[in-house]
């Protein structure tokens, strides 16, 4: 059980709390920078590299949210599996002349930026204006508790996720096989 530490006064930069806050700001900066690279680079390979950087930053943010297990799974699944899968697709499906494309979609420019800014801004205003009710913790959210709950309360969802993944793998193989003879 770890109650939220309420710091009433600003910590010095080179105290323990201050360095923790500095590391958090660095993690947020890594996340946002990686996301911007992933969406704005002209080459797809750089976009996937930016996505990896962004996911590492998100894993750091999860660590600050008292969830080292989810942070580890984030790096394992996203950086280790999803990013590698997308890299394979870039190697298999993107010829050299299509590697440098950049942003040329229908809403590029002020319309696309306006859409994104409207959504992000309205979500932020919504988050700031709402009084979120805080409830007392009933357990500590440790890895042991996650394991117990996964195999008792969430066992049905756990099995369903396994079936979804199995069907996704089989479906991916079947879809990618179509037209291979040509």
């Amino acid at each position, binding site marked *: 059980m770890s109650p939220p530490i309420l710091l009433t006064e600003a910590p010095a930069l080179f105290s323990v709390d201050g360095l923790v806050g500095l590391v958090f700001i660095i993690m947020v900066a890594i996340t946002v920078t990686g996301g911007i690279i992933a969406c704005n680079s002209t080459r797809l390979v750089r976009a996937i590299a930016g996505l990896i950087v*962004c996911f590492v930053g998100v894993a750091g*943010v999860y660590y600050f949210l008292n969830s080292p297990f989810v942070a580890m799974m984030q790096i394992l699944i996203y950086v280790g599996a999803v990013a590698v899968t*997308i890299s394979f697709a870039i190697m298999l499906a993107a010829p050299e002349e299509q590697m440098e494309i950049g942003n040329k979609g229908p809403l590029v420019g002020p319309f696309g930026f306006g859409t994104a800014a409207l959504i992000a801004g309205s979500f932020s205003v919504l988050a700031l204006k709402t009084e979120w009710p805080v409830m007392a913790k009933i357990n500590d*959210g440790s890895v042991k508790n996650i394991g117990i709950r996964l195999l008792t309360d969430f066992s049905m969802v756990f099995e369903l996720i396994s079936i979804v993944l199995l069907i996704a793998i089989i479906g991916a193989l079947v*879809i990618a096989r179509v037209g291979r003879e040509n």
Partner: protein
Amino acid sequence: MSALTLYNNLNTFLILGAVLFGIGMYGIVTRKTLIGMLIAAELLLAGASINFMAFNRFTAPDPVVGQVFTLFIMAIAAAEAAIGLSIVISVYRHFKSIDAEDTVQLKG
């Protein structure tokens, strides 16, 4: 409130999630290739996961539920990436292009 205590504040994480969602939305509407859109969709999922984890840490009574939900989001994202990329490879074999504008068969 100092900038060094931002990590103890729920609003910081909610705004970070919203910013990631906005970046992903910008990528989806401006990218021209299907792979670029998939990369942006992963950013959208990351923003949603950060929201879940933030509420899990600060307000939820049971901090296990949000972590389990985030693990399920990761599994769904992995399935989505596998299916989407096999579709991209199939589209490339058929049209010899992964440009979303080229994948049309009807005139118009």
